[in-house]
């Protein structure tokens, strides 16, 4: 289970023109919970705060304020133990090009506390599920985006995490690879894992997410099942929710 209570995150950036420092509040008091056996979709346009939120859950960033619990553990007080429960897939479609998938999975398995042999076996099993086992011993520098994403998914799931975080997992992928990724997400849900995905591909959300949270300008606008959101906003697609939020933001500005 993932639990976020009043999470805040501010970045200090340098304004190149005025040479002064600016504080940008990227996340403004997020509170939501994701249950085991559930796929939670974190939606929002670019710069809304999705990746920052996921990075905080994955332990890559620390919130300035708030409470974060991962499978009952305090994510801030016990970062290493919390990270051990998480399988994180970042937006970067990059892998260690010099390694083969087998080598990468073996070494990352060791990083996650597995024995090299077990890590390799689990890795090969995951590659088979992702239909990439034929490329297990090929150096990854020439891999396509889809192949790299599959290896990254295997890497993220290698240590059998109870919480899975996928940050924009289908961006830049062809339909076949995207389908493989979605099938994997469904499988993870069926296995009782807590899954959270961020995306701005709305059809995907409607297809697989049990619940969605819409982030706009660092705030959570709605936390419910996709159908409930549509009904509450009186729209036909989730895209229209964004248009309305953008219009509201423009009026307020």
């Amino acid at each position: 289970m993932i639990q976020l209570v009043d999470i805040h995150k501010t970045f200090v950036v340098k304004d190149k023109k005025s040479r002064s420092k600016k504080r940008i509040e990227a996340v403004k008091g997020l509170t939501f919970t994701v249950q085991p056996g559930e796929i939670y979709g974190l939606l929002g346009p670019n710069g809304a705060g999705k990746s920052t939120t996921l990075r905080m859950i994955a332990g890559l960033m620390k919130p300035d304020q708030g409470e974060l619990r991962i499978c009952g553990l305090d994510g801030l007080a016990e970062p290493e133990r919390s990270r051990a429960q998480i399988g994180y897939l970042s937006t970067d479609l990059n892998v260690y090009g010099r390694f083969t998938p087998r080598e990468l999975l073996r070494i990352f398995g060791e990083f996650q506390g597995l024995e090299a042999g077990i890590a390799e076996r689990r890795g090969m099993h995951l590659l088979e599920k992702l239909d990439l086992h034929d490329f297990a011993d090929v150096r990854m520098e020439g891999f396509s985006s889809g192949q790299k994403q599959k290896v990254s998914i295997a890497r993220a799931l290698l240590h059998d995490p109870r919480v899975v975080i996928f940050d924009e997992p289908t961006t830049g992928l062809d339909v076949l690879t995207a389908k493989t990724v979605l099938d994997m997400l469904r499988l993870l849900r069926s296995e009782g894992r807590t899954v959270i995905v961020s995306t701005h591909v709305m059809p995907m959300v409607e297809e697989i997410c049990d619940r969605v949270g819409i982030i706009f300008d660092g705030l959570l606008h709605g936390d419910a099942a996709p159908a409930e959101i549509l009904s509450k906003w009186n729209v036909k697609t989730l895209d229209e929710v964004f248009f309305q939020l953008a219009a509201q933001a423009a009026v307020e500005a």
Partner: protein
Amino acid sequence: MRGALLILKKEFLELSKDRKTIFFAFVMPLLLWPLIFSMILSLEKTDSKRREDKASRIWLVDPGRVITSRLQAEPKLFELVSQPSGDIRQAIKDQKLELFVEIPSDAQEKIARQETCSIKVLTDESESSSSLALKRLRKVVSTQEKDLVAARLQAIQAPPQLAEPMNIASTNVADMGLQMGKLLGSFLPYLLLIMMYSGSMQPGIYTTAGEKERGTLQCLLATRLPRNQIILGKLLYVFLMGVISAVLNLASMGFTFTKMVGAAMAQDAPVAATGHGMGMPAMSAVALGLSFLLMIPLGLLFANFIVFMGIQAKNTHEAGTALAPGIFVVVFLGIFSSAPGIEKMLWVPYVPVMNVSLAIRKLFSQQGDPVQYLVALGMTVLLAAVMTWISTRLLDRESAIFKQS
């Protein structure tokens, strides 16, 4: 520590996949020095033989035939040529001849009157062949001078000692090993520093800014490994690469120097070499061991600096730009430590890098000062420890991790 060792394993595994880097980091140093030294020695030998075998071309103006017959008696050393066309100075510069020698027309009379006769010589000392010609001429003139002095002394029935009231009999107490040690110590320390720094730099950039640039650093940080272990693993890798690079270069250079340059020196000075042998092994074992002990904290200091700058940089280009000037700083401090009289300055043992360079130089010339050595070692260990403490906290800084190009 297990996490750091796993990161180290990953870095070396990644390195093992890169044949080009392996060649340039590990194989090249082994080939480079023997190749460079053998080429230099071979060229020098060939050039020297060519010069020695060739008679020096001299335009001699000697109306009284004071030295003509002596020069003609050595056809392998001197070739008397006729007056060249054009300006004589230009002819010498153009290497059409090596010397112009002019003996005054009244030279014989002056000698007979027991006066000094001046010989005018035009030469181009920037050319080794002209210098050799002058050396040969000086030898001939010196022989003739000695004969004349002997004749004059005989004429007045004076003993030969009259013309030599004093003479110096010197004995060289330095064995070949010490001479070589001093020679090595004059350039080895700063070469070692450069090799260690440059040997660490590229792997350091690849494993820090490179990981950020390739987007793989986040994968590492998302694992259960503590962040200080990740940095420590990377530090160890960069440090080991620097040490390996320096040791390989040192071994290759030491072997080349001892075998090739040493043999050449022994040929030039067979007396010094006889009995003492090269003296290198005994000197090298201690000097090398103590130098290596100094290199460990220094290598760690360099690795810390490289990792620190690499992690702060947005990409490999920025890291390269930030780290390249470090080579000049290292070269400057290394060369400065070789400046004459620098060891007398009390503050030198407290200047990082320079104190190590100076201590290594002293070790090789068998003039090591234990206090100076310990201060250099202590200072470098302390600095390396402080830098390691700072570095291991680097990945806690989100601004460093997520700085994007």
